[in-house]
């Protein structure tokens, strides 16, 4: 994809700082030298385009990937991927991963002794449609303990990875659930200083897209850096 117009610097408070001491792992892993600001070159204005053959249809259904039904609260997670002008990002690769209903990741470094679900791997992916929409069927993940501080627990969340128009649109984030009492005491969630920016990581219960006797739905829209506006369109706005 070509011709991503210049990206704007982040509005203060809407993105986390690299060093956020309440999240202890940031202390030894965040750079201390200032970032060097560069103009965009062809390397930065372009980005990878992912083909449909990378995805199989069932990759958006995390409840049936292991030859049986995963345990837990079945949910839909859906939304739109937009650029900064509110335009749909079509064909955006969206990758997700998460803990199971008991709060356990299917990963060798997860030492929490909650049960593994043999029918839940916790990974999925898709490409957004012509309106920038995505929809996954999954299991609501459980909260889980981590070693950041004494009695630390992560609020329930789903990890999201997104590619937009141009590599500078790349985003990795986490989606949270409404009314989770662990959010106010979670250092990762609270690393975003601005309250309204933080709350945009919280999905919305969406009864309209929930299915009676089947599954609740949560809506989570995602805004990627950059604009797909052409220079011609930009000139007409001035």
């Amino acid at each position, binding site marked *: 994809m070509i011709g991503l117009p210049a990206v704007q610097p982040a509005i203060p408070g809407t993105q986390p700082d690299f060093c956020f001491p309440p999240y202890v792992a940031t202390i030894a892993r965040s750079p201390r030298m200032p970032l060097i600001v560069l103009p965009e070159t062809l*390397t930065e204005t372009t980005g990878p385009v992912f*083909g449909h053959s990378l995805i199989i249809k069932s990759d958006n259904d995390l409840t049936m990937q292991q030859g049986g039904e995963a345990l837990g609260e079945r949910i839909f997670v859906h939304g739109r991927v937009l650029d900064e002008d509110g335009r749909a990002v079509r064909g955006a690769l969206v990758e997700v991963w998460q803990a199971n209903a008991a709060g356990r990741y299917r990963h060798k470094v997860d030492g929490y002794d909650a049960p593994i679900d043999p029918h839940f791997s916790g990974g999925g992916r898709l490409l957004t449609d012509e309106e920038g929409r995505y929809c996954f069927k999954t299991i609501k993940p459980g909260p889980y303990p981590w070693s950041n501080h004494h009695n630390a627990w992560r609020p329930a969340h789903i990890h999201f990875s997104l590619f937009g128009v141009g590599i500078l649109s790349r985003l990795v984030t986490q989606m949270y659930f409404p009314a989770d009492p662990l959010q106010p005491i979670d250092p990762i969630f609270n690393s975003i200083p601005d309250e309204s920016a933080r709350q945009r990581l919280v999905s919305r219960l969406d009864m309209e897209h929930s299915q009676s006797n089947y599954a609740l739905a949560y809506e989570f829209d995602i805004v990627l850096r950059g604009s797909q506006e052409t220079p011609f369109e930009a000139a007409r706005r001035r």
Partner: protein
Amino acid sequence: MSFPRLIPTGSQTVGPYFRIGLEYLIGQEPANNSALDTIEIRGKVLDRDGAPVSDAMLEFWGGDLSGSDSGVTPDSSGHPIGFHRAATDDNGNFTLVLNEPLPTALGDGRLQAPHMLVLVFARGLLRHLITRVYFGGEPANADDPVLLEIPAERRHTLVARPDANNPRLFQWNVILQGENETVFFAW
């Protein structure tokens, strides 16, 4: 321009469990229909204390854009040409094979030396870091407009070192903080 823009969604760490969702693209070799030779980069990701970062993911972009806007489409498997995802092992080591990067045009007619853009994700990184890797022994490095923006004493952090016995094998470490901290960029 003064029209309302949406505010980009906040970044959060990739965490230690990213392989669950992202492994399928790790270590994919470039499509073999390319006319370009391949090279290999091996390296480590290290923290402030020189400790290996065993849960980092690196994404490499660019290199074989062929100096134009062509070649950015996916191959038959759907994998984009010019994009590579690597992850560190228990000892903080990563390795990847890629098509030999070519010089890239700058808008003003100058050329950039062969390089890749590198995105660094890890537990403890609330946002990803962005750097570039260049290749030692490449004469064009001396005139590269981006390398020349960087204080001379830090430039070496972006240049992969060719192996003494194998000019197609390069060594390049990413140091997140401290002595020889890698240069990271912002746009």
